[in-house]
């Protein structure tokens, strides 16, 4: 474990509200410049975790180090390297988009507020509404402004709590593009979502928060292969091979299809089992072989169900 690479380090994080334990000991390491995605159902504690990381809420115990600074001991230093886009748009409805950006820019004490404001308005396609009060904005426009306001202070780490909830498909794709661009520019993105597809599309690193702990983590690929119950689809070139194979595979859990001459064999996804399968079928005319992986959704539902 290369500690210096981990811009976010969380150890044994616990938090309860009154009697209810929301976080029961979360451990996480997140690499600099990556897109990290915290996946969890409603009420899993995603917002609670983001709030603790963003210095808004005190943990009961555990340690959080952001870019080398301890959240508990030096929140002021932490605040100067992070920025938060909360679950509910943190924009000032009475001000215009430009005024919002300038306000946050000046509160971040950056030097070139005006230039940066113009640049962000352009980048987030808000130029045409720059001088309109934000209360007249659509949800998507508000979200874009919200994120632009988070970027104006040049944060090292940006927290996005459900950035695409409530957006239409087009705006969501636009948001994904923005998030990828942020990461490409070297910002570490910590985002929460309830959408598995979003995690799969964006994240280098996914963690699933369930009942107060991280039940699994890794890349989308790793998570999928962790789930037993993948399958291999075998297609045969002729009827006799198809029939022979059926006899050979007696004892395996198979799904056969006489029309297409295919057999779907359930596997645990391991290489060993795959090699074994191919060796016993040696000699049959296999026209094609397709590894069918569990979808991330399967992984999620299986894990959460257990």
């Amino acid at each position, binding site marked *: 474990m290369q500690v210096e690479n981990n811009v976010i380090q969380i150890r044994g994080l616990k938090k309860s509200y009154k009697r209810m334990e929301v976080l029961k000991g979360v451990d996480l390491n997140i690499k600099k410049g990556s897109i990290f995605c915290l996946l969890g159902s409603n009420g899993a504690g995603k917002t609670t975790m983001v*709030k603790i990381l*963003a*210095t*808004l809420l*005190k943990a009961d115990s555990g340690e959080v180090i952001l870019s080398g600074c301890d959240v508990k001991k030096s929140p*002021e230093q932490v*605040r*100067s390297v*992070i*920025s*938060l886009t*909360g*679950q*509910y*748009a*943190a*924009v*000032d409805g*009475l*001000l215009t988009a430009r*005024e919002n950006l300038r*306000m*946050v820019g*000046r*509160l*971040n*004490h950056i*030097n070139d507020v005006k230039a940066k404001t113009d640049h962000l308005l352009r980048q987030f396609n808000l130029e045409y509404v720059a001088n309109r*009060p934000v209360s007249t904005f659509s949800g998507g426009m508000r979200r874009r402004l919200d994120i632009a*306001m988070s970027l104006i*202070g040049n944060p090292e780490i940006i927290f996005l709590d459900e950035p695409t909830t409530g957006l239409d498909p087009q705006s969501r794709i636009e948001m994904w593009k923005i998030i990828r661009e942020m990461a490409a520019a070297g910002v570490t993105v910590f985002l929460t979502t309830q959408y598995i597809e979003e995690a799969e599309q964006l994240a280098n690193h996914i963690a699933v928060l369930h009942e107060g702990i991280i039940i699994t983590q890794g890349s989308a690929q790793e998570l999928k292969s962790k789930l037993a119950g993948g399958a291999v689809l075998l297609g045969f070139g002729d009827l006799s091979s198809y029939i022979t194979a059926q006899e050979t595979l007696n004892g395996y859990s198979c799904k056969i299809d006489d029309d297409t001459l295919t057999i779907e064999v359930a596997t645990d996804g391991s290489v060993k089992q795959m090699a074994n399968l191919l060796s016993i079928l040696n000699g049959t005319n296999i026209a094609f072989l397709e590894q069918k992986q569990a979808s991330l959704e399967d992984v999620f539902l299986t894990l959460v169900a257990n």
Partner: protein
Amino acid sequence: MNRQGSLRWKTNDHFVMAGRCIRHLTRNLDNLLIVIVLPIMMMLLFSSVFGGAIQIGGDENYVNYIVPGILLICIGYSASTTAVSINMDMSQGIIDRFRSMPIAKSAFITGHVIASVFRNIVSTTVSVLAALVLGFSPKASFVEWLIIILILLLYALAMTYLSTIFGLLAKTPEGAGAFGFVMLFLPYVSSAFVPLETLPKALRLFAEHQPITILIEALRSLFASTSSPFIFEAIIWCSGILIVSAFIAGQIFKRKTV
């Protein structure tokens, strides 16, 4: 670039926050009505509608008699809107953004307070101008005007911090708005519009001892350029309320946001 935590850094934060709140004033029609229309309406109402009916004794000009009361009502009410703005800010996402930024802690509240003072300066100026048009004839000297301004400023600050407490504690903006009614009605139970002797006994007892009466008497004698023991008392009352409520507001804010 300023260093984080330096005086210039903090001053900047206070100014930005105040700028934000002052901008809000110009965006919100209700606010403008309170600041400009309320003082004029009050002056007109009291001088023309009630002016003939209320006997204050002697041959004193009734406009002169009511100006201090109206000034205090307008200041109190205008300061009370701070409760609503603060409550709205606290219940919306924007406060989380501010809290996650490296901003001077007190800037959020001072921003609202500075805006309130600004609002009160405009509102009081409008009140005085309206009064002058309606026949107000102050005899105060330059120094007495300065003392009047000091008392009004202290009163505005005290009421703003008091309403900050309400704004922080109220569950909803509507609840926070209720403070405005207190500030609107408290001056009626004082010597603001009728001599104390004309009040029923129970009310009179309250009126005699509440600080608004002291402030009214102090302002009245300052405008008339007569000396009065109430002037000193008024300053003490306002400073006292200001210090206590600013301290309590600060503590509540800290507790709510750490």
